[in-house]
C-alpha cells in the first residue's frame, strides 16, 4: 500500500514537471504555501544583523562538527553506549532496514509507530517493514495523510503541502472507517488524533529521526509540534532512532543556536512546541519510557560528499527546508516532480550521493542559479556552487580525474562533447578561428532551424553576415 516513490528520477523528471506546470490548481496550492512559509520565516528575522550573526555561528558549528566528524561519531557512540543506548552503523538503506528488522523480529513486533523521519523515507523503511509483515504507521499528521494516500512526502517539513483540505477530507472519508466527509480542519485533526492514540498505546516499537545528536552527553534531540515524536519515543517498549552520520555536534551548547536557526527558518516559529532530548532508555526506578533505545547511524553515500572539499558543505544541512520554500523551481513544480526523497535545492545536491548521478543529474540542471537558496540557508551552504559542480560532474569524461562521483559522466553525450571539443579548438587557435568564422558568415543559409532547447521558445541562431574583423576592415577612417 505504501508504494516506494521512483528511485530513478532522471527518467521522467521533465514529464512530471510538465504535468504539474499544466495543473493550475496545484500551482496555486504551491504558490500559496510557499508565500505563506516565506512570510512566516521573514517575520522571525526582522533584525538582519542578528540573522547574519546567527548564520555565521550556525555555519561555524556545522563546519567544526564535520571537520571532527570521525572523532565525534566515536565519542557519540561511547557516550550513548554508556547511557544504555545501543548504537548500530549502516552503510546503506538495506543495512539500515536489516538492522531495524532484526530488532523488530527479536522483540516479536507487529506494529511500529513512526515519528516524522526523512531518513526513514530515504531508506524506504515502511516498505521494508511491510514486506516482512510488520505494520509501519506514520503518526505525524502530514505523513499520515500521504501514507493514507499511498504517496510520499512532497516537502521535508510539510509532507502533505500538495494537498488541499478538500482532498484530505475526501481521503479521510474514503480511507478511515466510520468517518464522514468534513472540511473542518480541527475535526480532521481530531480524527487523526483519535486513530493514532490507540496506535501509540498498541505499538511495539517507536521509530524516530534525530535533529541533533550531541556527542559529549550522548543525547538525541528531536523537535516537533504535534507530540507524536514524544509519543513514539516514550510509549512503546522499544525506540529506534535513525539518522545520517552528519547530524552530530560535539557540545550540548551547540544545540541552541542551531535549534533557533532550524525552527525559525523552517516554519517561522521561534521554537517548536516540543524540544525533546533523549539520553537513554528507562532507568531502574523510572516508570515509563522505552526499555530499549537504539540509534542507527546511516552513511548511504554521505561519505562520498565528505571526501570532497567542495561537496562537504552539503552535509552542513540541518533539514529546515527554507531552500525549497524560496526556490522558484520548487515553487512551480512541487516536491513529487523531483522523484527523490529530498526535493528542491537541497535534494538536488544531496541525492546524487545517495542514488548516484546517473539517477539524479537532471535535478542539478533544474535550477536558475538565482541564489535564493544560498541566501536563506541558515548554515550558509553554497548550494548553487555545488549545483554547478554537479553539472560538470555529470558531463565529465568517465574514468578520468575529473570524474570523482558515483555516476560521473552520466549526462555526457558524444555529440555534445565533440561540439565543445571543436569549439575549444577554434577559440584557442586564431588561424582556425579566422577560417571557421569565414565559413560561418558565408554559410548562413546552412544554419539549422531546429536548435534543440534554444528554438523551443526562441528564433534560431544565425551567424552574422559579416565578422567583426570584416566590419573593422570596412570602417571608414
Amino acid at each position, binding site marked *: 500500500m505504501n508504494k516506494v516513490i521512483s528511485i530513478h528520477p532522471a527518467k521522467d523528471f521533465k514529464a512530471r514537471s510538465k504535468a504539474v506546470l499544466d495543473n493550475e490548481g496545484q500551482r496555486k496550492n504551491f504558490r500559496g504555501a510557499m508565500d505563506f512559509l516565506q512570510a512566516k520565516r521573514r517575520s522571525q528575522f526582522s533584525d538582519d544583523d542578528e540573522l547574519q550573526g546567527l548564520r555565521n555561528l550556525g555555519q561555524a558549528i556545522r563546519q567544526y562538527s564535520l571537520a571532527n566528524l570521525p572523532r565525534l561519531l566515536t565519542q557519540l557512540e561511547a557516550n550513548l553506549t554508556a547511557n544504555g543506548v545501543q548504537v548500530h552503523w549502516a552503510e546503506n538503506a538495506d543495512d539500515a532496514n536489516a538492522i531495524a528488522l532484526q530488532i523488530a523480529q527479536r522483540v516479536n513486533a507487529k506494529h511500529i509507530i513512526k515519528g516524522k523521519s526523512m531518513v526513514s523515507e530515504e531508506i524506504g523503511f515502511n516498505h521494508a517493514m511491510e514486506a516482512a509483515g510488520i505494520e509501519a504507521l506514520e503518526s505525524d499528521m502530514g505523513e499520515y495523510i500521504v501514507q493514507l494516500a499511498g504517496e510520499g512526502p512532497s516537502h521535508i517539513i510539510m509532507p502533505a503541502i500538495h494537498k488541499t483540505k478538500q482532498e484530505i477530507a475526501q481521503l479521510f472519508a474514503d480511507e478511515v472507517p466510520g468517518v464522514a466527509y468534513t472540511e473542518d480542519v480541527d475535526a480532521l485533526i481530531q480524527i487523526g488524533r483519535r486513530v493514532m492514540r490507540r496506535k501509540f*498505546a498498541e505499538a511495539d516499537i517507536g521509530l524516530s529521526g534525530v535533529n541533533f545528536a550531541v556527542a559529549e552527553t550522548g543525547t538525541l534531540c528531536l523537535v516537533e*509540534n504535534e507530540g507524536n515524536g*514524544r509519543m513514539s519515543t516514550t510509549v512503546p517498549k522499544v525506540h529506534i532512532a535513525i539518522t545520517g552520520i552528519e547530524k552530530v555536534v560535539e557540545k550540548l551548547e551547540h544545540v541552541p543556536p542551531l535549534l533557533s536557526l532550524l525552527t525559525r527558518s523552517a516554519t517561522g516559529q521561534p521554537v517548536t512546541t516540543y524540544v525533546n532530548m533523549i539520553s*537513554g532508555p528507562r532507568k531502574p526506578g*523510572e516508570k515509563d519510557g522505552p526499555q530499549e533505545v537504539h540509534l542507527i547511524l546511516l552513511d548511504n553515500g554521505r561519505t562520498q560528499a565528505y571526501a570532497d572539499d567542495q561537496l562537504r558543505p552539503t552535509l552542513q544541512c540541518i533539514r529546515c527546508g527554507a531552500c525549497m520554500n524560496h526556490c522558484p523551481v520548487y515553487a512551480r513544480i512541487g516536491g513529487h516532480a523531483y522523484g527523490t526523497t529530498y526535493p528542491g535545492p537541497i535534494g538536488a545536491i544531496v541525492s546524487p550521493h545517495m542514488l548516484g548521478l546517473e539517477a539524479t543529474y537532471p535535478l542539478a540542471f533544474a535550477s536558475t542559479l538565482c541564489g535564493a537558496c544560498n541566501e536563506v540557508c541558515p548554515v550558509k551552504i553554497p548550494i548553487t556552487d555545488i549545483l554547478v559542480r554537479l553539472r560538470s560532474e555529470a558531463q565529465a569524461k568517465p574514468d578520468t580525474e575529473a570524474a570523482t562521483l558515483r555516476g560521473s559522466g552520466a549526462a555526457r553525450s558524444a555529440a555534445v562533447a565533440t561540439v565543445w571539443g571543436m569549439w575549444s579548438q577554434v577559440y584557442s587557435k586564431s588561424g582556425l578561428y579566422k577560417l571557421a568564422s569565414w565559413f560561418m558568415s558565408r554559410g548562413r543559409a546552412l544554419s539549422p532551424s531546429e536548435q534543440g532547447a534554444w528554438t523551443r521558445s526562441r528564433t534560431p541562431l544565425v551567424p552574422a553576415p559579416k565578422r567583426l574583423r570584416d566590419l573593422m576592415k570596412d570602417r571608414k577612417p
Partner: protein
Amino acid sequence: MSARDNILARLNHASVTPRTTLPDVAGWYGTRQRGEDLPQRTARLSAALLAMRAEVHDVTHANWADVLLNLATAKGLRQVLVGTDTPHGAELQACQADNIAVLAYTQPIDTWRDLLFDGIDASLTLARGAVAEPGSLVLWPSPSEPRLMSLVPSVHFVLLDADTIHADIHSVMTAEGWHTSMPTNVVLVCGPSKTADIQQTLAYGAHGPRELVVLLRQPVGSPS
C-alpha cells in the same frame, strides 16, 4: 570489516584537517544578552506562552491548588494525575474537591497504559524552570514525575516558580551544567500540541495535550 569500520575508514581517509578551536557560542549569547531582571523575563515568558496559546495564571504558594481546582472544575475535568513524593502533588491530594479525583502515578506505565490514555483528563507537574526567550518551560521528568504525565492527558497543568525563569536556553544549560547531568529525558515545551499540516491551517490538540495551563507561582514574600 564492519560497517562501522568501513564508514570511519572512509571518513578518516578523506583526510579533512580537524579543527581544534570551538565555535564561540558563549560569545554570541554574551553579545545578545538583554540584561533583563526577573519581572522583565517573567513578562517576556508570559507573552510568549500566551502567543502560543498556553494559559498563564499568576498564583501564590497559598492559593495555587485552589486556582488549579477551580480551573479544573470550570473545564469539566474529572481526574488530575500527580506524581509521587512531591510536595505539590501531596498538597493537591490533600485538597478536598468535589467531582475531581486526584490520582498519583504510582505504578510503571506497563500495568495501566489504557487507563492513562482513556481515563485521565489532566495532569500536574512542576517545571524545573523556564526560558524567557524563546519562551519555553523546562520539564525534567523523573521517577516521581514520569515523562508521560506531560504528554498523554488532554490538559497539562504546569506549576512554574517565577524565580526559575532564565534568559534563554543557552543560559539555563550553562548555568545549571546540563552537559554533566543529562537525565533520561528533558523536554522544552512552549504550548499545547499543534499542527499546520492541513493546508497550513493551525489546529491545536494534535497528539499531545490540547491545553497547557501554566500556574506561575510567585516566590514567598513577593508583593502580590
